[in-house]
């Protein structure tokens, strides 16, 4: 930022102008006035300076001719030349005066030596008496051999007039510039206000709930249109997200109502028609299980929302992913055995990782739960993980990434289901009859995204392969 701009900012901050449009108007005026003043002073000094230089050059030329004559023909020749020059002076502005050592005036058109003459200065501007009137003149005095004094000058009263005229013009111009600046500033302010107000009106309407409103676009393709388009795009996205939220809340309503309705039906049925105490107890226990499902869904939803908000990142720490994998395979191997499944493992002894340990446990548990649930007996589930070294083109080129794959030979999914599997409450047709809430993979997705990774589902022909790619040390403050 340049000096004056910073100065302006300081002033504006000190004065504390609340209206942005007024501030813009003022900035415009100040800039306009200062540039006009700069321009005019340049013109003024240029004109006046040029005129003065021309006078000095003409005096110097005169002096050269006269002094040459003096050296060649002496004092008489000089007198003649002066008289000659005076006779030929068409502009009637040349001034000469030649005096003898005793003070007697020998030639020239001045009545006497100027009173205010200062012998110490070379160039002087002072009033001289000619033809009975005082005129302003630019003069120079030479002392010749034998103490003769020669004065050469130019009447500059005309130049003074020009100067005065110019100054007058300048003053008027300044006044006009001032008026223009104020007017221009006002126009700028009005324009600015109109733009702001158009955006403001739309956003206000949206705040009050009218999501269909958009900021008008002029179609000129200017910066204002850019801003309007960006805001409109943002509004479109918000609308889409709100629709998504609405859809999710509908799903929540549906998926929560179902177990509540079941519990209610069981209780009511038991209350009306249970024949014995054991039957009553059984019905109540079944209802309680359904209510536990409701709690489970609530907790999973809250957890997903919390993870998606990103606040859990404060609990990140460095841990060994391999240990987590060993523990989880050990936990699930027994379950796999029970289902007559084989759980194969393939991962190194150490896999340092930066993240939330508990979340990774849960993510892996969810994936393995699914794999076991959807595998026919005698199937094979493989859990593998390895470090992918950094490549120059990779995004996380410093530390590389970790790829965890869980592949089963189960019922798998079709392409349409693959794309939607990590949505909240999504359940593939073929999975409808199995227990579950449709939130497991949504939670995994949220956890993987929190760690800056990507969750991919693909065909394992047959079966499903779940791949998690996470940067090995993601967002770690020390970068290890």
């Amino acid at each position, binding site marked *: 930022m340049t000096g004056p701009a910073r100065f302006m900012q300081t002033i504006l901050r000190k004065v504390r102008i609340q209206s942005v449009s007024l501030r813009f108007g003022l900035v415009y005026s100040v800039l306009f006035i200062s540039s006009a003043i700069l321009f005019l002073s340049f013109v003024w000094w240029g004109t006046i300076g040029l005129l003065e230089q021309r006078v000095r050059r003409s005096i110097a030329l005169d002096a050269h001719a006269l002094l040459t004559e003096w050296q060649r023909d002496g004092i008489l020749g000089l007198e003649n030349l002066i008289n000659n020059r005076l006779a030929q002076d068409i502009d009637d502005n040349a001034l000469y005066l030649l005096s003898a050592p005793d003070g007697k005036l020998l030639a020239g058109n001045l009545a006497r030596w100027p009173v205010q003459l200062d012998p110490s200065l070379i160039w002087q501007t002072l009033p001289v008496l000619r033809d009975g009137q005082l005129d302003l003149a630019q003069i120079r005095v030479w002392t010749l051999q034998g103490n003769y004094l020669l004065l050469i000058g130019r009447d500059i009263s005309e130049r003074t007039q020009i100067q005065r005229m110019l100054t007058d013009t300048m003053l008027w111009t300044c006044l006009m510039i001032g008026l223009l600046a104020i007017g221009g500033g006002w126009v700028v302010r009005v324009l600015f206000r109109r733009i702001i107000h158009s955006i403001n009106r739309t956003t206000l309407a949206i705040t009050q709930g009218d999501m269909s409103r958009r900021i008008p676009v002029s179609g000129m393709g200017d910066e204002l249109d850019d801003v309007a388009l960006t805001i409109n795009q943002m509004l479109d996205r918000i609308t889409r997200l709100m629709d998504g939220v609405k859809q999710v809340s509908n799903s929540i309503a549906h998926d929560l109502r179902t177990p509540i309705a079941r519990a209610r039906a069981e209780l009511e049925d038991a209350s009306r028609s249970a024949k014995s105490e054991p039957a009553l107890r059984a019905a109540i226990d079944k209802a*309680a299980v359904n209510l*536990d499902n409701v709690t489970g869904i609530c907790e999973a939803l809250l957890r997903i929302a919390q993870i998606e908000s990103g606040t859990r990142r404060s609990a990140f720490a460095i841990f060994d992913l391999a240990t987590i994998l060993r523990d989880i395979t050990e*936990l699930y191997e027994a*379950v796999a055995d*029970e289902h007559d499944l084989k759980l194969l493992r393939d991962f190194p002894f150490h896999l340092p990782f930066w993240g939330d340990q508990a979340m990774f446990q849960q993510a892996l548990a969810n994936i393995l739960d699914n794999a076991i649930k959807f595998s026919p007996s005698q199937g094979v589930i493989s859990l593998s993980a390895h470090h992918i070294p950094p490549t120059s083109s990779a995004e996380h080129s410093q530390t590389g990434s970790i790829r965890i794959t869980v592949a089963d030979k189960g019922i798998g999914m079709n392409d349409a289901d693959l794309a939607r599997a990590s949505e909240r409450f999504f359940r593939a047709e073929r999975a409808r009859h199995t227990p579950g809430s449709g939130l497991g993979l949504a939670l995994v997705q949220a956890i993987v995204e929190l760690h800056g990774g990507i969750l991919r589902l693909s065909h394992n022909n047959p079966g499903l392969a779940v791949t998690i790619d996470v940067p090995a040390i993601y967002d770690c403050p020390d970068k290890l």
Partner: protein
Amino acid sequence: MRVLLIEDDQTVRNFVAKGLSEAGHLVEQAADGKQGLALACQDKFDVIILDRMLPGGVEGLHILETLRREGNLTPVLLLSALADVDEKVAGLKAGGDDYVSKPFSFSELQARLEALVRRNRNEAQPLTKLSVGDLEIDLLSRAVRRGGQKIDLQPREFRLLEFLMRHTGQVVTRTMLLEGVWDYHFDPQTNVIDVHISRLRQKIDKPFEHALVHTVRNAGYMLQE
């Protein structure tokens, strides 16, 4: 045992108080924080059940902090609808000994209460050997014997058995086992605990005449002679 129950919701309070009384415990009840704090300071209890959000201007965590500041080390089980991981951590940091989030099953609450009181009593003497009936384990050499016969257990199976033996005669829930043995703080959909218990049974119960590991319906498991 003497239990102080500080809980503002009457239904939950009656439910817990009734259940605990039926199990033979002495229950004092407080419906707000002020009364609860006064009772906790006056009397000596074996365990305090404390709701976190209470009316009357004295919040659950505040009671807990006040008690701990005054050197009162009565085990406190926090009972709260704030089920978030961070909330649990905050509760335990404030001096709570265990955390049960609402809604909860009575058996879970009871099992945890009993474990808490037992832990408090046992903390005095460090054990090197545990035994139930003819089953004994050596915590140092990690050896397991039943009726003089050596039994080979995997490290995790050993920890599972150790946990059960430390809670002999008490119900331990699946959640307690997940937390205590595996350090997992979530409930997997699959019945992983049941599978591991059944494997343990294969080794320590099946070859012998009578079983030590019992299933408690709607609650969990219990190791008992």
